[in-house]
């Protein structure tokens, strides 16, 4: 330890003079330790060598091999029947099913989040009745299986013959209709998915609102900014940062969740491919068709998510991260510059 002490005390000497016995010889710490240098040396002409990471290369090679093997088997195993996949991928019936899936997702996603927003505001209000109604709603719809909800809505006609709107406890009716004619497969599907979605998104939105610092609300109130403006201009844009990742999780879940409406024999994507493979017995390739479409939708949504999140991170980060496009451009720009630079001196 005396060596360390010596070095701290006389860094200039120990660096380039053989250190006296008491410090050095035994421990082998004499000479050019990393970081030791002669004061006043000019390093500007030195060549720079990057640190080497051999194990990183080994890991990369192993993973690359694995990826290659999987791709190879996907491409060459005839049982995947890629020809059949290609044949059905853009078939009219499959595309129709896809459109239905997108329609269900869009409608019940939108309605679900609107209703969820209202439920979240109710939950955060000062009225105990609104709070408990909102809580109960979430409790019921989160605790019953979606499948059961769906079947229940579809069979509502069994429980209630007719649905009417009027003044309670009087004979005044504005609107009166047979339940079975009102609740089609589509209506039951939308109703089930929307209400279920609303229960979950209410919690997501509430969480987002709670994540915004209370001081923001106070500052806005102190400035006399009206309540509605306070929510839409000050709180929600900040809450969005917390809401978006989970909200996109939910929407992506919903895309695939729509496949559950096959129980209503509603011809969305999944039900359509089921009908086809029951006829043609090409089970795996057709499941692959549906899967690939789900992957496509999810990919598109993920791109949206990236840009929307980036939009709402304004002010939350000091500098916005580059978009993939900007990153690529920058990479090529600097890469080209480096290779040119490297070549020119030689």
């Amino acid at each position: 330890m005396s060596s360390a002490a010596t070095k701290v005390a006389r860094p200039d000497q120990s660096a380039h003079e053989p250190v006296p016995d008491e410090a050095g010889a035994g421990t082998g710490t004499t000479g050019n330790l990393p970081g030791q240098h002669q004061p006043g040396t000019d390093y500007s002409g030195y060549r720079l060598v990057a640190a080497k990471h051999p194990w990183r290369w080994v890991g990369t090679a192993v993973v690359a091999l694995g990826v290659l093997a999987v791709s190879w088997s996907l491409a060459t195993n005839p049982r995947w029947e890629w020809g059949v996949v290609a044949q059905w991928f853009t078939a009219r019936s499959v595309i129709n099913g896809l459109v239905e899936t997108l329609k269900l997702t869009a409608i019940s996603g939108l309605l679900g989040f609107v209703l969820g927003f209202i439920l979240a505001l109710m939950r955060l209000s000062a009225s105990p009745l609104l709070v408990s109604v909102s809580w109960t709603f979430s409790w019921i719809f989160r605790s019953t299986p979606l499948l059961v909800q769906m079947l229940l809505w579809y069979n509502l006609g069994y429980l209630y013959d007719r649905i009417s709107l009027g003044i309670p406890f009087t004979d005044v009716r504005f609107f009166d209709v047979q339940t079975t004619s009102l609740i089609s497969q589509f209506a039951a599907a939308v109703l089930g998915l929307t209400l279920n979605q609303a229960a979950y998104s209410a919690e997501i939105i509430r969480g987002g609102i709670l994540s915004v610092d209370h001081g923001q609300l106070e500052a806005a109130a102190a400035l006399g900014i009206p309540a509605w403006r306070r929510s839409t201009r000050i709180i929600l844009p900040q809450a969005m940062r917390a809401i978006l990742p989970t909200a996109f999780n939910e929407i992506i879940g919903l895309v695939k969740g729509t496949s559950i409406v096959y129980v209503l024999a509603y011809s969305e994507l999944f039900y359509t491919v089921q009908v086809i493979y029951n006829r043609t017995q090409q089970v795996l390739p057709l499941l692959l068709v549906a899967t690939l479409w789900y992957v496509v939708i999810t990919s598109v949504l993920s791109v949206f998510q990236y840009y929307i999140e980036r939009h709402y991170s304004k002010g939350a980060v000091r500098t916005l991260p580059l978009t993939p496009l900007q990153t690529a451009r920058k990479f090529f720009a600097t890469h080209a510059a480096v290779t040119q630079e490297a070549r020119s001196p030689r």
Partner: protein
Amino acid sequence: MSIRTSAAPGSAPAETAASGPTRGLVEITGVRKSFGTAEVLKGISLTVDPGGVAVIVGPSGSGKSTLLRTINHLEKVDGGYISIDGMLVGYEVRGRTLHELREKDILKQRTEIGMVFQNFNLFPHLTALENVAEAPVVAPRSGKVRSTKAEARRRGLELLDRVGLKDRADAYPRQLSGGQQQRVAIARALALDPKILLFDEPTSALDPELVNEVLDVIRELAKSGTTLIIVTHEMGFARDVADTVVFMDEGQIVEQGSPQQIFTRPREERTRSFLSKVIEPAFNI
């Protein structure tokens, strides 16, 4: 009790001079406030003259911040009342009854009372200029029309210039230093042209070397004729800028007087012991 404003008549800018001399009289009478079983304000009475600068000092938990927050009705009082130029804060007088104001009317009152927070509370997703120009466009204001966006931006730039940040107008709060953020917050509070400005420990969250840039802005304001009520731990600043220093402890005003009197000849033992703790020995009074 009466507090004279230190503002020289000539130094007031046109906008305050035009509103006449009775702008910004604050009368606090017997204000009480409890949180649960803890009574944090035990009957506070205080008058601040128009254009006066009152600095409230005292140990933490003495109710200083709560008192400040009752003035713009961020905290509702349990007893007593507060009036500004004769306008009762949070209530309306009809005959012999007091009616609690609705949210919209409270907002109107608040536009007369600017507030600067310890943690700035700038809106992080809006630029400095957007922070300053937001309220004048949307806040309901009695007797004044709302600004158009263009007007608010022009005025916003003027105010940012006044706090020395015109060139950072398009920066987001997170891109600014603490001192700069607090100066934007002051500009934001000024944008509504308030009669009164409340400062809740405006320099407590700042690095020591940034404190002065904020205090300098407040010093300038003290000369402008706006009534200022400041809660602070900066004793040197208090002595410098205050017309009156109020010492609070345990929800009560222990004593108040000129800075000269409070800092050199405190009458109460509690004041003396507090001051001896917060003022460094090297600091010569």
